[in-house]
């Protein structure tokens, strides 16, 4: 393993911000840590970088314990949340900084900087002032700067956090492609699930300093480990239920569940696509409370006569008006019994 965390713990005051976290990152792997703000994901990066001393546990790089190794000797790249470009240096000097620190000769440095700027899509920008860059350009320079000393592990803290949506979606594809081409090992943190799923080979969901779930984007998306992960991924139809066979007793009545589901008192996730709207006199009677246009579909918020609100997804032409009475039926294929 390139990077291993072994029961890594960081306490601020009495509070454990990182609570016995174990995590492995293999060479050439892109791992994304996903979690709400305050879940300890930035602290995780700082602990690996050597900027935050551990209260307990170990950080190992290539199997070697990093305790006592200062940040500048770990050979790790870190791209900061708001880039932290050196304001008094131009773009080229920013990118060259790490090379200078590692004693690379000037001529070699200049060639390297030129290549890196080309790589991140800013050819010939070396003499530009940092202040004149747009947000997206700063992000590219920060990436080039972090890549320049050829770190064995590249860490990204909310790499696209401050950029606008369309730019973010474009850059995430570019990053993925770039890391694939260079074979870079990456550990990134983000609070944006779309970003994490698009970027990562493996997603790690964090909650309150602990790891709540780890798996490929598809695994996590299809089978969230618990109610917290499900809600964090944006699912609202999460309720307690009692499962017996292929039926579950829920606040919305009897719901069908897939065969082989775990039995007994469980948490039930009903994806919006599994909530089908039918005529008002069939199924569970509901009133339409709100509807939100989402581009490809419409999200409809339903108020049942009994039980918590329900979210349904339907095509635009089928969407009922606010205040309409509708019936609801459930699709077992879109219902997940959480462990």
């Amino acid at each position, binding site marked *: 393993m390139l990077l291993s965390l072994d029961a890594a713990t960081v306490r601020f005051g009495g509070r454990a911000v990182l609570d016995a976290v174990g995590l492995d990152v293999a060479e050439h792997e892109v791992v994304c840590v996903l979690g709400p703000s305050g879940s300890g994901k930035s602290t995780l990066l700082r602990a690996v*970088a050597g*900027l935050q001393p551990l209260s307990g546990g170990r950080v190992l790089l290539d199997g070697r314990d990093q305790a006592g190794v200062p940040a500048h000797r770990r050979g790790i790249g870190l791209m900061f949340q708001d880039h932290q470009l050196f304001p008094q240096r131009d773009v080229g000097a920013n990118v060259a900084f790490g090379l200078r*620190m590692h004693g690379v000769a000037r001529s070699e440095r200049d060639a390297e900087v030129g290549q890196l700027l080309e790589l991140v899509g800013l050819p010939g920008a070396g003499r530009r002032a940092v202040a004149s860059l747009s947000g997206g350009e700063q992000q590219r320079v920060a990436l080039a700067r972090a890549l320049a000393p050829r770190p064995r592990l590249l860490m990204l803290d909310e790499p696209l956090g401050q950029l606008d949506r369309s730019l973010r979606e474009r850059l995430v594809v570019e990053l993925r492609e770039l890391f694939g081409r260079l074979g870079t090992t990456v550990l990134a943190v983000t609070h944006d699930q779309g970003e994490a799923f698009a970027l990562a080979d493996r997603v790690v969901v964090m909650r309150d300093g602990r790891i709540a779930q780890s798996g490929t984007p598809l695994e996590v998306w299809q089978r969230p480990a618990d109610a917290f992960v499900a809600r964090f991924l944006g699912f609202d139809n999460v309720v307690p239920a009692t499962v017996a066979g292929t039926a579950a007793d829920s606040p919305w009545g009897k719901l069908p569940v897939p065969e082989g589901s775990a039995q007994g008192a469980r948490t039930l996730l009903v994806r919006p696509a599994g909530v089908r709207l039918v005529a008002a006199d069939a199924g569970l009677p509901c009133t339409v409370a709100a509807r939100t246009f989402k581009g490809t579909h419409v999200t409809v918020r339903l108020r049942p006569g009994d039980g918590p609100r329900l979210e349904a997804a339907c095509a635009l032409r089928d969407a009922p008006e606010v205040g309409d009475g509708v019936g609801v039926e459930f699709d077992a294929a879109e219902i997940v019994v959480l462990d």
Partner: protein
Amino acid sequence: MALPVAFFAVFFAWPVAAIVARGLKADGTWRFGRIADVVTQPDIRHVLWFTTWQALASTALTLLLALPAAYLFARLDFPGKRLLRAVVTVPFVLPTVVAGSAFLALVGHGGLLDQLWGVRLDTTVWAILLAHVFFNYAVVVRTVGGLWSQLDPRQEEAARMLGASPLRAWRKVTLPALGPAVAAAALMVFLFTFTSFGVVQILGGPTFSTLEVEIYRQTSEVFDLSTAAVLTLVQFAAVGAILVVHAWTVRRRETALRLVDPEATVRRPRGAGQWALLTGVLVTIALLLVLPLAVLVRRSLDAPGFGYYRALANGDGGTFLVAPLHAVWTSLQYAVAATALAVVIGGLAAAALARRDAGRLVRGFDALLMLPLGVSAVTVGFGFLIALDKPPLDLRQSWILVPLAQALVGAPFVVRTMLPVLRAVDARLREAAAVLGASPWRVWREVDLPMVRRALLVAAGFAFAVSLGEFGATVFIARPDNPTLPVAVARLLSRPGDLNYGQAMALSTILMVVCAAALLVLERLRTDRTGEF
């Protein structure tokens, strides 16, 4: 950290301890009753009373006259604003003796007002109060105006949209935000005027005497060192109390204000009210800040063919052992040495204080550093006089004594100038450099130094100006055959005769020009206007 601590221990704490011992210890026993004895003497009580009320009056008068100017500089845009800002700041860095002579030339015997209308103020308290306003005008304009210019006007607009009248919006939104800055400025002015020495020494005559002047009188005229020591302790306690309150208000000022670029908040004056305000402020500045200095220069040129200036080059006046002009050279040498000392000591202290992981102890040192500034130069000079005159440290004969005292007074300015800049360096910028492979030393050289270079120059300039004009401490310890400029001016003024008076004016003019030049260089270097000085 160790070097600044040692410096302050030897050259500040020890002299202060010596003062305590001298004042309260007789025949080897402590006598705390001495404090009560001294303080209850009628003439001392009079001094205490005068010191306090003149400081209060000076502060009130300064606020009254300078707050409109603070608004003007913060919110209005008009041609010549930069120049006016520099003009307002000049008096603050001028030596007290220059201000003293300038006001003497304006309102004193044979002064401009005397010639025109037969009005003399040099025997009244008004001369002192006006001179104090002259000095501290810039303190209020810069501290309050600096913050005011960065307050987001949209906050007031938000209050207006919620139904507040303009006046009410100002009272409820701007005033509370400004309050701590006004309080901090007022305390600063109170502190400076409470410990006023040079101005009162020159303008107060025999009638008016502050604690500082009394300490000096007890030492150099009455030779009652133990009374002087007790008075120093009283002053020490008062200043300590003021500084604690000041530190508290400063901390409150730093809390959670949304600040914006000052450039975005200014606009051209509009309406009769704003034009009247602009005119009023300009007239105040002209009469109070510019006129005294103009009269000073005019006076120095009274003798035909630069007579007073030429007289400075002669050593036969009997007032000095050397030609007065020699004092210029002495002063410059001392100032260079003092600046170097102050920058090294103050810079190291600021670097230690700026560290984010600095503990309570270190931060306590921050407040301690301000003490020499407030505790007044006279205390420093007096302390040096009685503490450094016997082995192991006998520096009486050494030239370094004067620069040491001046560095002690100048170092807090260096810390104050450097600290905000060092603290403003984003810690994550240092981390970014570390992650890219920079060792801690390289981080400092590559990240911190380029950012503080300018502040370092400004700090050095301040230390230079401070030590050039330093009077209170220097007057105690400067050797008679080697006076500095301010000491020479004071000595010339204390002697009768037109020639001495004219020479004092000429020497003051020289001092003013040097200090003003230093300041103008600083103004060009300075980027932020939020610094405390």
